[in-house]
């Protein structure tokens, strides 16, 4: 006989709150990137306005988790779900902060008349970052271990693009010192995207912890996925 129905319901509600927050964070980063590529000030402002709402969601979920621990004394998978959620919301909130920062850079560049064409690699990096967040949240919703582990691999590409772009912007500044401020702005945006990738990475790691019951760091997961790929190839 199924027992503790209200507890089950509270866990379900917590899961739904997490999905809502994840979806809002994904939208925030999507809008921030669109505001960059389309120079859309209205959208950039929307991202900034939305951030308070996401902060509020973080506090609310954190409180729900604390109360669940205090009142229901969860153990095993339930305990892992609640504690990993408490870690996840911190990463999600930080992703939203980076979205807000990107939006502020877009507004700053626009207000200062920096007419910069967004380099293709930045667009690529932004797309990868969005895909990574989407994949991480997908893994969370489906509680899918393989998907979570695959997210670990996606950060490699983002880091590679970031390193390539750093060199590109330095080169551009040397070629045209007048573009220095705009290039620095673009570099900062790339830095935020790179950090978003790191937080998406953390999200994936906490999903792996929730499912497997032990924490695996990014490098361990990456080695494991690479090993599995090698096995598949042979």
């Amino acid at each position: 006989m199924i027992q503790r129905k209200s507890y089950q319901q509270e866990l379900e509600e917590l899961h739904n709150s997490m999905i809502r927050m994840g979806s809002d964070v994904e939208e925030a980063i999507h809008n921030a990137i669109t505001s960059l590529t389309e120079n859309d000030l209205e959208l950039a402002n929307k991202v900034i306005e939305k951030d308070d709402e996401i902060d509020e969601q973080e506090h609310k979920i954190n409180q729900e988790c604390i109360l669940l621990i205090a009142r229901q004394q969860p153990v095993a998978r339930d305990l892992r779900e609640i504690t990993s959620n408490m870690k996840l919301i911190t990463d999600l909130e930080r992703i939203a902060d980076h979205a807000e920062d990107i939006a502020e850079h877009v507004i700053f560049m626009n207000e200062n008349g920096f007419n910069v064409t967004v380099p293709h690699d930045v667009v690529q990096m932004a797309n990868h970052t969005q895909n990574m967040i989407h994949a991480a949240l997908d893994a969370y919703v489906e509680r899918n271990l393989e998907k979570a582990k695959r997210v670990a691999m996606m950060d490699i590409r983002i880091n590679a693009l970031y390193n390539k772009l750093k060199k590109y912007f330095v080169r551009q500044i040397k070629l045209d010192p007048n573009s220095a401020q705009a290039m620095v702005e673009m570099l900062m945006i790339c830095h935020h995207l790179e950090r978003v990738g790191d937080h998406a990475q953390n999200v994936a790691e906490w999903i792996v912890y929730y499912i497997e019951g032990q924490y695996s760091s990014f490098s361990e997961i990456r080695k494991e996925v690479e090993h599995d790929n090698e096995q598949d190839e042979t």
Partner: protein
Amino acid sequence: MRQQTDVKLDNAFVVNDLDLYYGDFQALKNINIKIPLNKVTAFIGPSGCGKSTLLRCFNRMNDLIESARIEGEIYHHDTEIHGKEVDVVQLRTVVGMVFQQPNPFPMSVYDNVAYGLRCQGVKDRRILDEVVETSLKQAALWDEVKDHLNRNATKLSGGQQQRLCIARAISLTPEVILMDEPTSALDPIATSKIEDLIIELKKSYTIIIVTHSMSQAARISDMTAFFLLGEMIEYDDTDIIFHNPADQRTEDYISGKFG
């Protein structure tokens, strides 16, 4: 008798292929478990799962039930406890027991603790005084009763009575203390005192405890075994059982999803 290859000095008991029947009803099914020395091992599971039945096997309390029949082996170190050479009274001295309801004898606090030794023929007052004091101190009761040792034990509070029963068990310097839901009749404060005591006692004794309180098992035990319908479903470090159990049935039970 089977050759003992798996009995180690760091185990208080090794149970091999144990089946227990009450008449036609099989209450325990093929139990294999090693109880480590100087640890607290908790048995958990829903009512009727066999956990108390197994607990009572360790000092052969099931011998008192006429219809009970046991197959398999229980080794206490290198002695199979059902062997002909085993003196059951001696076994119960080495393997003491504390029950759900505190059961002090209707006599003084002092006489309760001295009872076991007197039964063994000890009459020397100095020895009795020393054992009574040491046992009551170990049971964390001395400070509360030292000025009332002649008071009738039935006048003590429930929590004090249970600690007195623990002192009575300790007085015979057992190696193992079996506890069958020792706090289920106590309030939270008395329960916490007993729990603190159990953690303290494991330095000197091996403790096996049956409990219906998941949080109690999680708080005080080193090892936890989960039983269901006479089978031992899972046995592991308590940290693992309550954090990442291997069996879904264990997970569902400890999470309160059935039981």
